[in-house]
């Protein structure tokens, strides 16, 4: 659906904005350019005051719209212009702990551009570019996602696997933990969209930190990247065969891996979560540990699902599994953002998984369908699947 911006009104802050910085700035009259400059200088943007987040934009424009991806709210809301100025604002109420990615759509002349918030240095990247990020009250960036010079670093190695299932060469990046020893036996974690996890969810830094902090044991991680994501990730038998019959046996023949279901994990986000579940359904108990983030688990209770034909193979798979669920792993971690439309599908999946007797942990966050949401859940998810020796090791 194409969004048609509402008429951009010149508006003073409303009664329920009383006490907010924007209301104090305006205070019934148009602030001078000097006051506006000072206001911008003195605040971080968006301004977070309790549950109210004030988005601010300054420029001459025909209209400015806040574009975000919070399911349940209008995804496009017009900012109001403070009368007599070039200052625009919008007050959005966000529950504690929320994290919201957004852009401004700025209309000037006949042109309309989506831009990041020039007043906000917080940016989150994804394969499509980058968004500005609003941290609502109570959201804290985890300390374990930051690179720490004192943390020993793992190493990366590129490998090529010849796949009969996928009829060609497939490259995989192997992560080995710091202080790697051939004499140890390591768990193996296979990651869908591995390079994206590294680029956009700081996966190698997270692994380095979690291993160093003993939240998880040293892991060998196979970072896979699909040649054709839409083909391979939508319940593809060839993809599942590649992982279970080619990649895992090849790595286990060559590396000091535990080589048992409890020592094998498979994970992914979005369609990558679908590919993970699909693989374990086709090869139950090859992977004893399963991590599913914001899975695109389309299904229908009656009639057709409403996500479009692209999701047909996924809905067929999920519907089949819903009709005849069985344990596909020993432990499953499922996470989803409450700002995602997929929250319904993910919530629906959890009791189904639990009914099979698998050990399931489900976590929701006030976040959207994005890589930093998936990053922020990695500590809990990985520590649930592969508990580290933190309780036992004292340096």
């Amino acid at each position, binding site marked *: 659906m194409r969004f048609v911006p509402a008429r951009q009104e010149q508006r003073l802050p409303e009664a329920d904005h009383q006490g907010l910085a924007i209301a104090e700035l305006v205070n019934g009259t148009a602030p001078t350019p000097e006051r506006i400059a000072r206001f911008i200088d003195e605040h971080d943007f968006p301004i977070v005051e309790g549950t109210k987040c004030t988005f601010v934009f300054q420029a001459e424009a025909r209209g400015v719209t806040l574009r975000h991806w919070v399911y349940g709210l209008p995804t496009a809301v017009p900012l109001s212009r403070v009368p007599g100025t070039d200052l625009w604002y919008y007050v959005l109420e966000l529950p504690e702990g929320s994290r919201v990615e957004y852009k401004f759509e700025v209309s000037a002349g006949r042109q309309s551009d989506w831009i990041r918030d020039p007043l906000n240095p917080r940016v989150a990247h994804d394969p499509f570019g980058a968004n500005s990020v609003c941290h609502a009250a109570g959201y804290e960036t985890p300390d374990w996602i930051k690179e720490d010079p004192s943390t020993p670093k793992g190493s990366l190695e590129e490998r090529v696997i010849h796949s009969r299932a996928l009829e060609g060469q497939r490259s995989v990046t192997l992560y080995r933990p710091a*202080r790697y*020893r051939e*004499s*140890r036996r390591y768990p193996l974690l296979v990651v869908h969209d591995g390079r994206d996890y590294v680029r956009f969810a700081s996966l190698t830094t997270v692994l380095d930190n*979690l291993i160093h902090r003993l*939240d998880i044991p040293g892991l060998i991680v196979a970072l896979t990247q699909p040649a054709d994501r839409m083909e391979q990730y939508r319940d593809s038998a060839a993809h599942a065969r590649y992982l279970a019959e080619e990649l895992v046996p090849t790595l286990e023949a060559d590396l000091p891996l535990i080589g048992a279901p409890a020592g094998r994990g498979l994970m992914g986000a979005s369609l990558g979560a679908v590919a993970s579940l699909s693989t374990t359904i086709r090869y139950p108990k090859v992977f004893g540990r399963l991590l599913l983030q914001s899975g695109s688990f389309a299904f229908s209770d009656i009639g057709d699902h409403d996500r479009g034909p692209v999701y047909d193979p996924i809905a067929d798979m999920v519907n089949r599994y819903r009709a005849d669920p069985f344990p596909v792993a020993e432990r499953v971690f499922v996470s989803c953002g409450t700002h995602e439309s997929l929250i319904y599908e993910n919530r629906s999946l959890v009791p189904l998984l639990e009914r099979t007797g698998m050990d399931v*942990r489900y976590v929701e966050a006030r976040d959207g369908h994005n890589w930093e949401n998936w990053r922020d859940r990695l*500590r*809990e998810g990985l*520590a*649930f699947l592969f*508990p*580290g*020796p*933190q*309780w*036992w*090791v*004292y*340096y």
Partner: protein
Amino acid sequence: MKSSRIVLLGPQGDEPTLAAVVRDLRLPGPVATIRAGWQEWESDDAALQSQLEGAALPLELYARAERVWSADPELRVAHREMQADLRILRNLYNRQLEPAAEAWMALLDADGPERLLDPEREAALEAIQRIDGRHLRTIQDVQGDFQARMRPLERPAVARERTEIARELGRAAVVVVEGGHAAVLYNRMALFGLPDLLAGKTVIGCSAGAMVLCRRVVLYNDAPAIGRGHAEVGLGGFGLAPGLVALPDAGRRLRLGDRARLRRLALRLAPDQCALLDPGARLDWDGVSWSGSRSRRVEVDGTVTPWGHAA
């Protein structure tokens, strides 16, 4: 067994104090070192060698145990089975501990007449202590059964290594037990019957090394990735350091500002004292009493005080 002296130290990573302590002891000869807690990294002891200026005499308990497992597969299998049983027992213990700890916390926070609440709170505490005590006894029963069935010290592969260890220890008046994985450390020391070989030595325990010298190895982490972080009685220790529970790296692992939480820990582990061994901390046992330097303890009201001299 009688040790002439026990010294407990905090972590040695950022602020190593071992060299100064060894100098302070004024005992001649090499210093025997136990680094089995570091597992495959046992032999990476350059920092320790440097601290001890080349006087370190590595006992290599982890490597010796690996040799024993290769030479005596029956013992290895039995040991693995014992460890598998202990993992199951830990899970069963935690299933009891968590609700008991939550119930106690709820009662401590409950409003109502103190004359009615206090006996209930005491009963809740006793329930946790009973669970702790029973878990410890069960662990010791499993370990005792392994010893009785397998008689490891009488098996050639173990006896051979133990003879060499005893010979090495004969040259050293001081033994350093370093940190790492507390259970691995304990198991390797127990496998070779180390406590009896330490008689008459001065034993310095650092971090996890300090923990295994106490009567109980208490595991703790106030900010775990999963769960509420209720401290666990993980193992029985060797009981060489009487009257306390060693809590190394406490400043990082415990929420020292949370007095209610610390109070619960101190009450639960009483009559043992909770000894906080942060970097630079030192506690000395002279056979009669403890004296401390830069170490602290948790009082039963949840306050943290410098050790001074323990009763």
